[in-house]
């Protein structure tokens, strides 16, 4: 299975791992880490928006968070997805 990563576990960053998923399985998001307890909804919303804007329908996303703000989270997700889809590794 193809996977790609972006980000780090530094404070206020996150490590995003994305994996290909079979057609029709949809977007699966898993979030763990320091902000998960209080920001899960906001983080899921941000990740879904980024995924939708990139036209991806089926993907598994795992986020290890260390306090990333939305703007960082979005950028990391976008980078990971682009890496998965071909571009740089």
């Amino acid at each position: 299975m193809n996977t790609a990563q972006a980000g780090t576990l530094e404070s206020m960053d996150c490590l995003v791992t994305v994996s290909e998923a079979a057609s029709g399985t949809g977007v699966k998001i898993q979030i763990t880490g320091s902000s998960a307890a209080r920001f899960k909804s906001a983080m899921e919303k941000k990740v879904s928006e980024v995924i939708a804007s990139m036209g991806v329908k089926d993907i598994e996303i795992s986020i290890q968070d260390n306090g990333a703000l939305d703007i960082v989270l979005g950028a990391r997700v976008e980078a990971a997805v682009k890496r998965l889809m071909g571009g740089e590794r």
Partner: protein
Amino acid sequence: MAKNALGREIPDFIEGYGKTKPFQGAFALKPEGYRAGGKIRCVNSTCTDKRVSDIKAAIAASGLKSGMTVSFHHHLRNGDYVVNMVIDACAEMGIKNLTLFPTALFGVHKKLIEHIKNGVITRIMGSVNGPIGQLVSEGGMDVPVVLRSHGGRPRAVASGDVHIDVAFIAAPTADKYGNICGTQGQSACGSLGYAFTDAQYADCVVAVTDNLQPYPVAPVSISQVYADIVVEVPSIGDPAGIVSGTTKVTRDPLRLLIAKYASELIEASPYFKDGISFQTGAGGIPLAVTAFMKEAMIKKGIKGSFGLGGITGYFVELLKEGLVERLMDVQSFDLEAVRSIGENPKHIEISADWYANPWNSGAAVNMLDVVILGATEVDVNFNANVNTEADGALLHGTGGHQDTAAGAKLTIIAQPLLRGRIPCVTDNVYSVTTPGEVVDAIVTEYGITINPKRKDLLDACSAVKGLPLVSMDELVSRAHKMSGPTDPVATEDRIIGVVEWRDGTVIDVVRQLKTK
């Protein structure tokens, strides 16, 4: 269910705690009646040696039985061996249902979890940190933890809210008749301030030492008139852990900026003049404030009167350089402080009662001009939370937060606006430790936010050119914008922690976390 003065729902009765008195305001409750006291003892010249052979013999001789309350002090911090040693021995002796009444617990005490699970400890009155805090937060104890400040604890003992059956005192040096000294020996920890009340009010006092010296030792912190039993053990603590926990002045530019703003606020205040007294503790930002203040004091030729509370090498330096006249030390944080309190008569040991008890004839905090504190969060009403983390877990003790805030003329909470994504300034704190009525200013990397009720301070700061003043509204909206909306903490109804204000009224309760 009644609402306390801060609008927090406090049940009239809490299972395992009893009837509650709701918080009425920082200085509202006035005590009545007389102090409580321990058992009267009589020891004649037939006893000239209080030593017993080992810790189990000491426990047996103390009369400690299942269901009783045992107390400990935390001057050995993360190096402490005594709490684990005593509770292990109690477990082996079949003693159960103990109430643990420590002045604080540290990571080294996570071993107690097994004794919570096997029923040796059924109640904790005192701070719970790390793994024990997590366990308690998830409902691992049947009885709620009771959190008291450093001043609230001696108040509770002296007023009879808590009766100590046996107090175990970690004694870095002792003699066979129970004179105790904290400044000498391989496990020297300096001040024994938190142990005084326990020594005075417990029915039985056991001195646990690893440095027995000929009678009489000198200097004496806690004297033979309080100690009933002396026991020698191979070691009471790990010296590396005893002086750990002291942070260095931060090198993080963000935190240095916060410290600089806090220092500028102090300089702008009416208290920055000869005779200023202050407490800054051992955190990274407060230590940096001390460093900035020192520069300012030298530059403006100002000399202070005293430094209070937990004492670090930085304060010792101020004393040596004549920038403060005295240090009043309830806990010596590092080797420099331990050395200084042993050698310098201007560096004095004070008890927690003397330091912070609201119900005596006047605590040292009343004489304090400025205190720099931290908090996990502060809200728009300046209420501060130091007990629970963002996820709702009860992970920190109250320390001297309430007492110094209530006593000092200028109480500053210095904190970054965000920790990771988590905002430190919110609409409403998850749990309250210290009410906004005794908090005067919040300092973040965005500037100084003054409690509107301190119009005098606002005027004083406005008169100084270039001081970055930020309104609370602006601060909280900035925090919202950066962090985004938060999910509520998912809790059960059951109360796992009771946060007392320093006068024994309940300022807030903490509920059990829903397990995922």
